[in-house]
């Protein structure tokens, strides 16, 4: 029996990982990095290191939230109820990352930040990614799902595909030459998006319609 055959939430509720715990675990890297930064243990370039750690975790959570559907469809592992937490964690990390860049790196020098946004493609795509995450985070609650309706809501949330493309590109664009790490993240993003594209092209309407709808219906329940 695969996850698709099961009714949603087939795992017994008592053995479920509590949603709050995802946030607690999810914020641990941020707390640890900020603690290291404040105690001057982030190495020779602490601001850059802090920025990079926060940005990297934003990308990781974004990819994790995108892995939920394939995991369910391929492996049968159902962590759908944690997807919202993963997505919101990605947004919170992106926000901290942006705050570190604007506040610590450029000390709220908006002229420099503005120039960066318009002149540096890596900043442009990074900001674009964040801009996409804002409405998604703002609508990641049951009230907004009810307000928008499941169909509109899930269509809106497909914008996350563009957010992850921009985020992966943001990473690739900031490094010198072609070191493996950003390419690995870009590769993971490509696989997660490619999987969806492949399902869609192969005409699997179940994948297209069921996954987002199921999420909305679960939240409604």
């Amino acid at each position, binding site marked *: 029996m695969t996850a698709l055959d099961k009714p949603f939430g087939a795992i017994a509720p008592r053995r479920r990982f509590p949603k709050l715990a995802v946030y607690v675990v999810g914020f641990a890297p941020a707390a640890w990095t900020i603690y290291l930064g404040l105690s001057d243990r982030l190495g020779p370039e602490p601001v850059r290191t802090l920025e990079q750690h926060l940005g990297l975790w934003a990308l990781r959570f974004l990819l994790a939230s995108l892995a939920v559907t394939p995991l369910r469809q391929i492996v049968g592992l159902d962590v759908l109820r944690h997807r919202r937490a993963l997505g919101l964690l990605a947004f919170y990390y992106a926000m901290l990352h942006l705050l570190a860049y604007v506040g610590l790196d450029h000390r709220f020098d908006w002229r420099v930040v503005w120039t960066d946004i318009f002149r540096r493609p890596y900043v442009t795509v990074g900001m674009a990614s964040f801009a996409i995450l804002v409405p998604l985070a703002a609508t990641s609650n049951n009230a907004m799902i009810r307000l928008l309706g499941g169909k509109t809501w899930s269509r809106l949330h497909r914008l996350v595909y563009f957010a992850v493309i921009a985020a992966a590109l943001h990473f690739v*664009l900031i490094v010198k030459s072609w070191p493996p790490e950003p390419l690995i993240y870009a590769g993971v993003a490509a696989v997660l998006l490619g999987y969806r594209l492949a399902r869609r092209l192969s005409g699997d309407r179940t994948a297209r319609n069921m996954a987002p709808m199921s999420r909305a219906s679960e939240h409604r329940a």
Partner: protein
Amino acid sequence: MLIRRPPDISPSEITPRSVYVRRREFLSGAVGAGLATALGARIEAAPLQSARSTLSTDETPTSFKDATSYNNFYEFGPSKSDPATYAHSLTTTPWTVAIDGLVAKPANYRLEDLMRPFALEERMYRMRCVEGWSMVIPWVGFPLSDVLKRAEPLGGAKYVAFESLVRPEEMPGQRGLFQLLDWPYVEGLRLDEAMHPLTILAVGFYGETLPDQNGAPLRLVVPWKYGFKGIKSIVRISLVEKQPATSWNRQSPREYGFYSNVNPTVDHPRWSQATERRIGEGGLFAKRRATLMFNGYAEEVAGLYSAMNLRKFF
């Protein structure tokens, strides 16, 4: 013709600094066991005597720890901690440097022979990385011009080409599927840049021989250019007629020019060069510094480029 005579003190007779500073332990026999391997394996950091040059800045030097743990040396990997992690595998003795090309006296020098005629100077220089950070390093070395003059450049020599070591068995960045640059790492200077008194070949810093991760045993330091121009672990210096290829320029011609002079008004295509972070300065709340034209050496070197469009020849 190079006349070889034995060095006054051969490097192998110099007590490694790491042993020297622990001499009491050594005498008490505590490190006796480990010593045999240490001596047999490699010459470790040895103290270097040098006179402080007037060309030095009086800025506070970067800590030895930061200068030896935050490095770009792609032969050992792309991460800044890779050189400190892997470079100890590099064998730097014996070391031979070829000086050839358009010179009257081409030769293969043992490093000791190359150095011997020159008095070592300490040059405290700012170092600005193209990535937007900077350090202040007390280099120990001698002017490149002295080396070139000894080789007697011929009339046709217009540029100096440098080549770094290729030794995949000791350099993990030169092995494997994904190699970030073509090896050997190559760099170049115009002859007048190479002859400039600020341009040095360094054999040490902080009063001792260069650690492996910093380009042991011999590297170039050109303080008004971005750090990557300072080619490390040099094995060949050639006088040539045409502008030589340089590694980062080959990797991305529109991003890294042949000249690569520090210039706050010419941005890297992907990021600003207007400001920099001074390593070790103030932790999380440190303010960026304004990057200076020619890294603060404009007075000395601007004349080299008086007729040039620095935006075009970046």
